């Protein structure tokens, strides 16, 4: 019974995450529209888009094309089930950071597999760029979180949230790290200047080049879910999560809309500029941050 309850909570969390993120991306579209001095779509536009796509007849390039997508969505749903939100966690004790990162990576791999099997070189180039970018932002981000884990001595997200309630948000522990993590998050969300892997003008939306109809719909659902995972991971790790749901939602919306708005007034880097940027600024900041932490607190250990 307990197990069923946990699974139910997990599924509820995934559904909540999808609803939340899809709504917030709709709202964000309106916010960006205001930056661009226009009105923008209705807030539930993304739901309409997804529903339309699921009702459209599309093409497939073979079973791996579909299978990869299913893996992508399954990875996203599976990961979202573990995500603690405002004190609610489906599988207590198992909401492990490494697990979440790797399970989310399975979704990424599924997407890559699917678009690679479409046989379009633009898709392959897009995936290549995405992975190249991935190696740029993940390394500083994970390094920071490892420092955080070693500071809190637990890798369970919900426990880190609990500990922050006692000792203050992680932003205060590692202010520079927060900046780095935000830059990395910006890259993970694929906001400009780090949307090189999509780059419609260069590679015609890259990995998405062959998707239409339900495939694109599933991909959009998976994308919303993975954004939910990324942003709530960030909020949980660095901004103390949230004791109540409104608090969490506030932080969540703030971070996501901030990142999107920044993206709206920036151009796109070239892919090698992205890599160079990530190996210069964030890595340097991370190292400084870890040294600072070691000096200030008398060693991380």
């Amino acid at each position: 019974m307990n197990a069923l309850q946990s699974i139910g909570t997990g599924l509820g969390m995934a559904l909540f995450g999808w609803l939340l993120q899809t709504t917030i991306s709709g709202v964000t579209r309106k916010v960006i529209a205001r930056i661009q001095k226009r009105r923008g779509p209705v807030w539930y536009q993304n739901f309409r888009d997804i529903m339309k796509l699921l009702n459209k007849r599309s093409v497939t390039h073979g079973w791996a094309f579909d299978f990869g997508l299913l893996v992508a969505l399954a990875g996203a749903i599976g990961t979202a089930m573990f995500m603690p939100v405002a004190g609610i966690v489906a599988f207590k004790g198992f909401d492990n950071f490494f697990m979440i990162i790797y399970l989310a990576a399975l979704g990424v791999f599924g997407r890559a597999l699917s678009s690679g099997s479409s046989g379009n070189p633009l898709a392959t180039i897009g995936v290549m760029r995405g992975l190249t970018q991935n190696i740029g932002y993940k390394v500083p981000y994970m390094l920071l979180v490892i420092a955080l884990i070693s500071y809190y001595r637990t890798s369970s997200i919900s426990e880190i949230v609990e500990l922050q309630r006692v000792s203050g948000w992680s932003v205060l522990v590692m202010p520079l790290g927060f900046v780095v993590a935000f830059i990395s998050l910006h890259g993970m969300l694929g906001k400009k200047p780090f949307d090189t892997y999509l780059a419609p003008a260069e590679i015609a939306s890259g990995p998405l080049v062959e998707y239409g109809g339900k495939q694109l719909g599933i991909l959009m659902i998976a994308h919303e879910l993975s954004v939910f995972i990324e942003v709530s991971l960030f909020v949980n790790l660095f901004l103390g999560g949230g004791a109540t749901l409104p608090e969490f939602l506030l932080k969540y919306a703030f971070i996501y809309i901030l990142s999107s708005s920044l993206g709206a007034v920036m151009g796109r880097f070239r892919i090698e500029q992205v890599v160079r940027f990530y190996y210069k600024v964030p890595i340097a900041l991370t190292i400084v941050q870890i040294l600072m932490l070691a000096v200030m607190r008398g060693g991380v250990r």
Partner: protein
Amino acid sequence: MSEVKLFFGPQHPGMHGNASVHLYVEGDLVKKARLVPGMLHRGFEKSMENHTWMGNLALIPRVCVAEPDINEMVFAQGLETIAEVEIPERAHYIRMVIMEMTRILAHMMSLGALASPTGLYTANQWMQADRNNIQDLFEAITGHRIYHMYIVPGGVRKELPQGIETRILDFFTEFERRMPEYHALIFENPTIQARLKDNIMLPEFVVWELGVTGIGMRSAVGKPYDVRKVTPYARYDKVDFEVPVATYSDAYTRSVMKYYEIKESIRIIRQAFDMMPQGKVNVKIAPGNALKWTLPKGQTYSAVESARGEFGYYIVSDGKTQPYRIAVRGASFPQGFLGVERYMPGVRLDDAPLWYDTMGICTPEIDR
């Protein structure tokens, strides 16, 4: 096989206009490139031979959709040269106003179009909004938003409407107030600078090799090689304006020069309104019914400075009611063909659309 063939256009978000660049890419480096034109080929030069001199007026603006008035201007100017008529002074100034407004339109279009390869879509949103305002002004003047058919052989089609002068000047005052905002958004943006600066170079020898004109030429040569200055037409020799020049032609220079040209164009518009005399706005270039005009035998090459460079028509008249031959020199013909073939190889795949954009290639005028 080490090279991949990629298609940049015709149906591609980075391609403005209906053309295709076929790229051979190795890794992310462009190895070979060819422009494949003709998707917009309508056979203008043939159609023009089938229309009367004035009948062509409806056809010619459609040669280049981004900047239609230059077509009317070269056509009118060429016909006036062949017919050897002088047009009223006022018409010259009105023409200058129209031409400069079109130039502003075209420059704003291409600055907005920078959004696509660099991803700064907000720039496009803002630019297009202001373009719409200018097109509204055109609508007030000429009755049409894009294809105005306003500059006709012998002057301009009709007198300016009442109060348009203040409306135009007010708009441009307001627009000038907004321009620093655009500058901050586009040219002071570090990400845009990272993309544009020291990238996609156009050295001077390439300018001469290809025959590039316009901003591309001036940004590399460093001399005011502008048709308006070198062989002044209309009354450009009477107004006071600067032509921005540079000797280091990267994508950033070429783009920022458009910004300064917009400023100069506004200056010209102000002066033109100041200096504009009263009087007639058109004369007949031949006697009789306008649709049965005949021109004396002769041929001439008439050129104006478009937003992308020297735009010209070679007009041949055999003394009949229809042109014998009109050949169009699209301003971006050199960089569009030979430039793509010779100098697009070597840029990164990421920069290929940027190359195409900042070289100022306009497909319709190439295709005709």
